[in-house]
Structure formats: C-alpha cells, structure tokens
C-alpha cells in the first residue's frame, strides 16, 4: 500500500528547532499539502520524508515500513524539486529516463515509458532538447515526468509551481491534479501558496514555527480554522480578527463589546465556557452584510478606502475604537468613502477564539 | 581615464628616453669614483670587499667606492653572461672563470691590459711576480700569448682531503699492509707520494657496510674509501679527468697549437682512453650518489664533511668548510697533494687542471675608473694584502707570498700549494668553450653512469670537437 505516516518527528540543527513533533498520515491516493509561511519547517518535513535529512526524533513510515535510517535511494519515492533539478548535461528524454536506469529496463521498454509520460505531459516535442533550451513550464513538466515515469511508493513535491507565472501556474495545477488522481499514490506537496493548496489537496496540513497547527480538508481549514493562526493564514482577503470583551452569554447569544460598540451576536454554545473574558472574534470579510441602519448586532464603521475587485468590492473601514475592518460587498452595492456602515456578521461564519488562540467550538 | 593618461605619459617618456640616452649615464666626477664589481658570493670575495673597506687608501686622493654585487654561485654565470651580452654595461670588474676569457674577449667585453702594464712599470713588476701557470690560465688570450686580461682573485688547485683518524688507525694500517703489502698513507708526505693505484687501493679497502668495523668501532653508516668530482653539472668531471689524461701521457685539444692541432686522434688517443678507463674504474669505490652523475665538488665535499669518506680530492676553495664548526671531521684532517702517476723515470707526474678565478676589467670602464682600478689591483696583489688574504683563508699565486715560510702555516692544506702550482694546466679559453664543455660533460656523464665505455666516449668527444672547431676555423 502506498501510504506515508509521519509520527512525532523533530528536527534540530544544533540549538535550532526546525520541526517539532510533527505528525501526519497520508493515505494511498490522497494528496496532502504542507502549507505555511517561509521558514515554518514544511520543506524540512518533506526532506525528512524523502530521506534527504535525518529526523532527530520520531518515525517516518512509508508503505508500512519504518524508513528513518534508510537513505533516499532505498525509500522508493519520487520527488519534484523546487528548482526542478534537471541534470544539465542530459537532454530532456535522458532526464526523464534517469530513474529507470535503476530498474534495468530494456531500451525499448524504457523508451516506451518515457514516451508515454511525455505524451501525458505534452513533452514529446522537446525530448531531444537540453534543459537550458526549454521554457520554465516545460522544465516543470519534465520534473513531473521524471517523477511519474516509474511506480514509486509515494510522490513528494517541493514548491512545484513557485517558479511559474500566474497563468502557467493555473494550468499546471490542473494538470498535476489530474495526473495524480490517476496514480492513486500517497502524495505530499509543499507550498506557501494557499490557493495551490486549496485547489490541489485532499487535505491540508498548516505549519508554523516547526509545528503542524491543523490538518484538515480544504473546506475544514477554511470553515473551521483551529486557531487564530490558521484563521488568519487561510482565505483572501484575510479574516478580520478583533479583540472583544465577552460580557455575557445566554441562549446562544453572546453580548460582546466589539470595536467600541456593544454587540449581540449568535455564537457556538461552547462559547459559554469562556465567559466573562477577553476573546478574539474572527469574521471573514465576506461574512458581513451592510445594514441600512444601526441595530443590536451591528458594528459601526466608516469607509476609508474602496478597492473594486471586479465582481466584488473590498472596503477598508475604521471602527469607533480605531481598528481596521475589511468588508467585501457585491459590486452592485455602491459605497462611498466616508460613508458610515452598519455591519452585521453572519453568525455561522463568526469564530470565537479563546485567550490561548484556539477556536472555541462544540 | 587616469590610467590611460599615465600610460600615454609613460609611453612618451619611454620613447623620449630611448631617443635621448645613448650610453654613458655613468659619468663619474674626478673626486668620486665608483668601481662596480660582479663577484660570486663566497668568502674569498667577501674578504676582498672587507679589506677594501677597512684598509684601502687610494693613492690618488680620490674617494673610491667599491660597489660589489655578490651573486650566489649557482647563478653567477647566468647573471654575468646576460649582463655582458645584453650590453647592460653595468660592471667595471668581473670575476670570471679562466675559460670564459675567449668568449667575452671576442665579444668585446673584457679589456686588454697590456697598455696599462706597459705604462706602469710598477704594475708590470707586480704582475710578473705571479706564477706563470696561473698567470697563463687567468690572464692570457689567446692562451699563452702576451695578451693580458685578468688578475688572480682566488687561485685554486685540487688537493687530497684525508681522514687522519681513519687512515692512521693501527688496525687499519695493519690490515692494509697485510692486504696490499704497502703502507696505508697517513701523513701529508705519505699522501703526497700516492699514485692513483694507491688511491684505488684505499677505495677498495675502505668499503664498509653499516656495522662493519671501521677504525676500531662499528661503522654507524655505510663508509667509502674515496671520492672526487664525477658530476654532470658545469665542469665537475672534466676538471678531474683532464688531470688523469695529462698525467698518463694523453692530451686534450691544445688551443696553443691551433689551427694545426687536431682533436681527433689526440682527444681519443689510446693513452687518453686508458686514462679515462682508469678514472671510471674508481667510480665503483665512491659513495653511491656517483652513479647518478650528480657527484659534483660540493656533494663529495659534503660526504667528506659528514664523515662518509676516507679521502676526497677537491678544491682548496672548499677547505674552510671542512674546518667549520659543523664539520664532523674538523679535528681529524690531514692534507696532501692530489695523487699522481709514476713516470717511467721514477718521477711522479702530477698534471692537474687549474681552478680558481681571475677578475678582469670591462671595456666600458672610463679613464678615471681605470686609473683607480689599476691602483686597486696593485694594492690587491701587494705582498701585505696577499699575506692577509692567505691568512684569512685565501690563496696567493704571488711568488714572494707563497714562498714565504709563513705561508704553509696559514692553513693545513697550504703545504700542497707551492708544489702543485708547478703542475697546473688549463683547457680551452676559446669562445666555443661552453659548447665543448657541455658536450664533453654529457659524454663523460654517460660513461660515469655506465651507459658507454671510455673509448666510445672519447671518440664522440673527439668527433664533436673536430667538427665544431673546424666549423669555426680553429682546426684546419
């Protein structure tokens, strides 16, 4: 079975803790994205899975076998590098065929396999060229081709699309996803681009400072962020995170002092365990509706900057307490700079976080 | 572009200087005379400089400075040759090997001094007190004519350096007597009386492996009886082989007989072949480095100083080193003349190739410089200074000096000096010296390292000399 299991791995460089107690399991056919800002340890985690780094502590289990002490070549994996790592002295065909040498295939068989993946990835035309003579997108596809030309235990991708321009990135996302879905292997993709993660992954593991903050489907991490970090990291425009005083909670309604106004809003029953205290409330910009007049559950804010985004408009507004608030409204709703807004949040999309930063949910 | 401007300026200056300066920038005033001298860097020249600085008072009343360029021996010829032939005209005095005379006289670099001698009877008188053998070798070109060029700086001959502690040891004396029926030479007089056959016996007798008994003690290292120069570099076998050839009735090409004198038939005469064979026969008793063809005068001296050899034939010029503090044999020495060959008349034949160096004046030396130079040479060859020189480790070819009974007391090898002077000869002062020498050294090296026999060697040398000298008209 093609699976990957990472159990509490830790990586130390001297005193520096690069990865701490990270655990993750990837099922056959599943694509997991490691997502996080630069320096969060996601690449180190991937390299530990590949065997390019040794885990200081913890276990790496691939296809049911503990592989901690095995060098990369014994792990039977395929990897696509950030800079593609194309062998500069070999032409495209030879590059793709490189992993096949180990399997000692006949020339015909090897050619057949190379041609097959070349066809899948539209590389047939460039097989005779040198890596220096092909485009970035082609390089990327060559790197993928080299990975899928054989039948490894699992696939690892290190920032596969980071060097491509926006358009190519978009089309490659689709292609890679399609290719992977036909292979049913455990796959780990490292990326710092949430769009990439959201579109390609079956599940996303969000990392920060060497720790995995949350693992979940794209929907879960978006709709139910486990903590403030995940909430702020996932979603564009960024979620509004506002400090609030929780006054009281009864019958599913919380009374809070938010952005200088007393507001009543529906909340998860678990919020009851918090009161009364300081909390963090997270509301996505699209979860607001601008009411015509002030109400019990509206926040008052004054529009300061209008950014039309096509179908929608992003408004930066200032609350009474001086905080900044982002609101996305449909294009049709015309709002002028200086206009006072009464914002009402959708209770289903309102997240409460305790003082420890964790989401409070039932 | 400052660099560009600078380059342009330099280029202009360059061409200007090139066009304007034709020759003599070295115009010395009457009061200040500087004599520039190129010398090899070693004690005899250092002493000369020291004496000059401490003692020399110019008679003319001028301020005379002797600027000496001490050039390390290994590069001396290269430096001097390049300086002379490039027309650098840097030096007024040059220490020269006797055999370089032809090349540099013909090139117009060495100044003939006959006019100076004729103009100054005093100078002539001093000059004539020099023993004729060194005088001919160091000063005449063509050889043995009355055309004079140089003055002896450090005259030199080959002598026998011997280890008294080894050769005078009772045990060794007894065993040698038993084996050869002759006394193993021990004193200076006994060394003087040695023939090459005796020398060979010493070589054969003292072949000791590490641990064998040597002078009553186990030898600390392999030990050998004899050593002499047999190296490929410069003239480090010719100088020895010439002596063998002359002593045994052979001859080298004689430049004084040119253009009638031949090389072929003379150089490879049976007597010469026999002499070379005898020389080669001795190599086997020498320290193993001889087999590589690098046994030069310094290597044999070093082996001797380190106590690996019983007898070494070498130049007096290297004598001081054997007495130095770091010499392992400094207090165990006895010196004699180089071995000879017993003539049919029962008299010893001792021909040997002269060593040492003259110094000469160059042709671009100005009038005033020449005047001071003559005074300086007269002073240098004066008895007093020559005595001081000898006392400081030098040698003198001035009759009155070396015949003085004090002379032999200066250094232990001086007892061999006067008798040896009588037997000194020299070879080739012709301009082709280096070509002849290189080819001969190459051929001797082949013989010494066992690649060819004496006959072939001398045949090759004779043929080359015949062709070469014919080409330049020195053989008809």
């Amino acid at each position, binding site marked *: 079975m093609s699976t990957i299991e990472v159990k509490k791995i830790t990586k130390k460089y001297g005193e520096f803790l690069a990865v701490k107690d990270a655990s993750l399991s990837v099922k056959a056919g599943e694509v997991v994205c490691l997502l996080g800002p630069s320096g969060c340890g996601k690449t180190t985690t991937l390299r530990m899975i590949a065997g390019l780094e040794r885990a200081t502590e913890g276990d790496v289990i691939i296809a049911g076998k503990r592989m901690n002490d095995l060098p990369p070549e014994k792990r039977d994996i395929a990897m696509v590098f950030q800079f593609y790592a194309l062998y500069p002295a070999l032409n495209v065909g030879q590059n793709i065929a490189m992993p096949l040498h180990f399997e000692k295939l006949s020339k015909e068989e090897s050619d057949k396999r190379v041609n097959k993946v070349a066809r899948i990835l539209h590389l047939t035309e460039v097989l005779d060229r040198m890596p220096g003579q092909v485009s970035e997108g082609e390089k990327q596809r060559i790197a993928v081709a*080299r990975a899928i030309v054989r039948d490894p235990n699992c696939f690892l991708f290190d920032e596969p699309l980071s060097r491509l321009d926006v358009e190519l990135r978009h089309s490659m996302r689709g292609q890679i996803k399609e290719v992977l879905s036909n292979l049913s292997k455990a796959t780990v993709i490292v990326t710092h681009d949430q769009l990439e993660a959201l579109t390609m992954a079956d599940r996303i593991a969000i990392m920060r400072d060497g720790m995995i903050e949350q693992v979940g489907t794209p929907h879960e991490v978006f709709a139910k962020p486990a903590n403030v970090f995940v909430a702020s990291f996932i979603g564009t425009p960024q979620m509004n995170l506002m400090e609030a005083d929780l006054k009281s909670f009864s019958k599913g309604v919380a009374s809070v002092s938010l952005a200088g106004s007393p507001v009543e809003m529906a909340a998860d029953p678990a919020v009851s365990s918090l009161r009364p205290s300081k909390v963090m409330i997270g509301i996505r910009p699209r979860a607001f509706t601008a009411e015509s007049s002030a109400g019990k559950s509206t926040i008052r804010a004054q529009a300061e900057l209008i950014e039309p985004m096509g179908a929608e408009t992003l408004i930066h507004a200032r609350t009474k307490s001086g905080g900044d608030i982002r609101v996305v409204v449909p294009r049709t709703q015309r709002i002028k700079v200086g206009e006072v807004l009464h914002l009402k949040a959708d209770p289903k999309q309102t997240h409460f976080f305790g003082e420890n930063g964790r989401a409070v949910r039932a | 572009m400052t660099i560009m401007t600078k380059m342009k300026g330099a280029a202009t200056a360059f061409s200007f200087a090139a066009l304007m300066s034709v020759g003599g920038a070295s115009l010395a005033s009457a009061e200040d005379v500087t004599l520039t001298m190129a010398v090899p860097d070693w004690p005899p020249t250092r002493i000369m400089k020291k004496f000059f600085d401490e003692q020399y008072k110019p008679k003319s009343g001028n301020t005379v400075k002797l600027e000496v360029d001490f050039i390390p021996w290994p590069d001396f010829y290269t430096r001097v040759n390049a300086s002379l032939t490039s027309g650098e005209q840097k030096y007024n005095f040059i220490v020269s090997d006797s055999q370089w005379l032809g090349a540099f006289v013909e090139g117009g670099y060495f100044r003939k001094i006959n006019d100076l001698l004729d103009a100054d009877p005093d100078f002539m008188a001093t000059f004539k007190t020099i023993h004729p053998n060194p005088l001919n070798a160091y000063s005449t070109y063509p050889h043995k004519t009355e055309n004079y060029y140089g003055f002896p700086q450090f005259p030199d001959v080959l002598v026998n350096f011997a280890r008294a502690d080894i050769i005078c040891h009772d045990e060794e004396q007894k065993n040698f007597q038993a084996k050869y029926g002759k006394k193993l030479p021990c004193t200076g007089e006994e060394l003087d009386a040695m023939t090459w056959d005796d020398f060979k016996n010493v070589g054969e007798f003292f072949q000791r492996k590490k641990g064998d008994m040597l002078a009553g003690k186990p030898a600390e290292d392999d030990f050998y009886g004899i050593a002499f120069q047999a190296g490929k570099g410069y003239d480090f076998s010719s100088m020895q082989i010439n002596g063998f050839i002359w002593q045994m009735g052979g001859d080298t090409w004689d430049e004084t007989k040119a253009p009638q004198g031949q090389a072929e038939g003379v150089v490879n005469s049976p007597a010469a072949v026999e002499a070379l064979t005898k020389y080669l026969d001795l190599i086997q008793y020498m320290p193993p480095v001889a087999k590589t063809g690098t046994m030069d005068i310094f290597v044999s001296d070093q082996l001797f100083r380190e106590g690996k050899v019983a007898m070494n034939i070498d130049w007096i010029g290297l004598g001081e080193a054997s007495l130095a503090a770091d010499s392992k044999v400094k207090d165990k020495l006895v010196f004699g003349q180089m071995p000879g060959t017993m003539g049919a008349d029962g008299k010893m034949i001792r021909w040997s190739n002269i060593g040492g160096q003259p110094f000469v004046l160059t042709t671009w030396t100005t009038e005033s410089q020449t005047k001071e130079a003559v005074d300086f040479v007269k002073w240098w060859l004066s008895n007093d200074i020559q005595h001081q020189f000898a006392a400081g480790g030098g040698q003198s070819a001035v009759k009155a000096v070396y015949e003085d009974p004090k002379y032999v007391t200066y250094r232990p090898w001086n007892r061999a000096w006067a008798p040896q002077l009588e037997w000194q000869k020299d070879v080739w002062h012709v301009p082709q010296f280096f070509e002849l020498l290189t080819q001969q050294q190459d051929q001797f090296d082949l013989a010494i390292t066992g690649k060819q026999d004496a006959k072939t060697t001398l045949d090759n040398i004779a043929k080359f000399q015949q062709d070469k000298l014919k080409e330049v008209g020195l053989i008809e």
Partner: protein
Amino acid sequence: MTTTAQFLPAPPLFSPVAHNWKLAILAGLVVSAVAIVLFPAKLSLGVAGAMAALIAAAFTVNAYRRRYYGGLLVAPAIAVLFVMNIFPLLWSLGLSFFAYQSNNQSIRFVGLNNYIKVLTNDIAAPANWDALINTGMFVVFTVALQMITGFLLAMLFAKQFPLRKYLLILVLTPMMLSVVASGVFFSYYYDPTFGILSYVMGEITGNQFILMDNKLGAVAGIVFTDAWMWAPFVMLLVLAGLVSVPKYLYEAAAIDRVSKPRQFWTITFPYIRGLLMLALLFRTIEAFKLYDLVYILIRGGQDTKTIAYLITEIANEQNKTSEGAALSYVILFMVIVLTNLYLYLANRRNKGA
C-alpha cells in the same frame, strides 16, 4: 548586450586622422620592423618605443571620440603586454631568422636556416629531437599525475567536514614553495646516503637505495616532485567545480536511485569539465617549460634533457641566441597547436551540451 552609440563612423584604413588606430598599428609595425632590420639595436628600440606611443595615442583618441569603451578598457593592458612581452617576443622571433650570437656583434640574415638547423642538422638535431621526445614524455607524465592526484585530493575535500579549512591549507602549501628550495630538498630526500627514501628502502633491503641511477628512476623522481608541487593547483580548480554543483542535483539523483558512477558522469563531470580543461591548459603550458627540476635534481643526466633545458644551454650558456630562439618557436608552435586542440575540444563539448 548593450551597445553604446558610436558618434563617429570608423575611418577607412588609410585615412590619416588621429583616431585611426588601425593605421597607427600598421605604421608602427612596419616602421619598427624596418628599424629593427636597418638600425642598431638601441636606435631600433627607440623607434619601436615611439611607435608604441603613437599606437597608444591613436587608441586613446579613437576611444574618446567614438565612445569606444572596449578599446579604452583594453588599451592599458595591451600596452603593458606589448612593451613587456609581445615586443620582446617579436624581437626574438625576428632574431630567429638571423645568424646572431649575443656575445658577438655580427648579425646576418639567414632566413629559415636556423629552423632547418635545429630540426635537421646532424650535430644539433638528434639532441633536439631527443629533448623533444623527453619533453613530450614529461608533459604526459607530469600533467597526468597532477590531474589524477589533484582530482583525487579534490574528491577528498569536496565534502564538508570538521577542520576542513585547516587540512586544505596543508595540501595547498607545496605550490607556495620556491622551486629552488623544493628541488634542492627533494634531491636530499632522494640522496642515497642521506635521504629518507634510501633510509626507508635500506631498512627493508639492507642496501642504500639509488633512485636516479637510471632513466626510469630519474624521470620518476622529477615527475613526482613536479606533480607534488602542482597537483594542489589542479585540486583547487577541480574542488571549485565540485563545490559548485548544486546540491539538489545529487538529492534528485539519490531519489531517482542513480548509481554513483552514473552520478559522477552525468552530474559531477559536466560541472568540472571546464575547470579540468583550464587546469590542463595551464599545466600543459607550464610542463612544456620544465627546466628547473631537471637541472636541480639530475643536471639533465640520465637522458632527461628537455627542450627548455636545451634552450637554456643554447641561448644562455652558449649564447647562440638565434638558434635558441628558433628552437623556442618550434616549441611555441607545438604548444599553440596543442592548446588550440584543447580549446577546440572544450568548445565543441560545450556546444554539444
């Protein structure tokens, strides 16, 4: 490539304007050549100097007027090289067509006679051909040994490991020695009586060991010393190549399960090929000039004379300047052919890649 606007068109070759450097060079060469042939050395030198100044001036004016930065930048170097190297080289090239001995003022044009003499004369030529063969042998042996040793050392130092910096400097030291000192000391190491080699061999065989009493030993001694001194040079260049290989290529190769030999040929070698070529180029040029060690260790004995040795004998000791020059230019021709071959091969490889 940014091209700089050139405000003036290049003048026609024979137009006598101040910035016509081509004309200046042509005139300079012609006048100098005529001067060298006709005038005595001193005067012809002056003329040549003036011509050099003329060319330099033309270059500068040209560069200023036409904003020709290439010429401007290159000019100082060319000027220095011309005066200090190229001019003397041309001079000696000229001399090689004359019968001239530096210690003899007469000079006579003999055309190609010197070349014919050094290559076919029955006195000189056999020695020259012999030395040519020896030189070839030394070039092959020393360069090969340097390349192999340098390469192996570089492999050792390619990885990061503790104390690397301190160990590396030890290996680099031999090339910092002066040839005289290392040559003289190696003659001591090889000495049958005093040397360590003989001592070690003596402990085994019981006899003093004479390394250089035959050609094989002498050549081995020379080659070893030369290679020891200059292998670090090769090592440094190769090492530079090795550390410049991107690490991710080896990582990719490990994951692709590429065997070590294949990794070397497909990843490592392409990166060090250019540097190997550079090392080969410089070391070959130097090996053709091998003289010092042959002189110091064995005085050219045991049939080890090289061409550079002969040239020194002929041109320095015997003052046969023009013959020496002719022999040098024969060598120069060979070196040029060989280095061009190297460069051609290197370029062809590069284009293929």
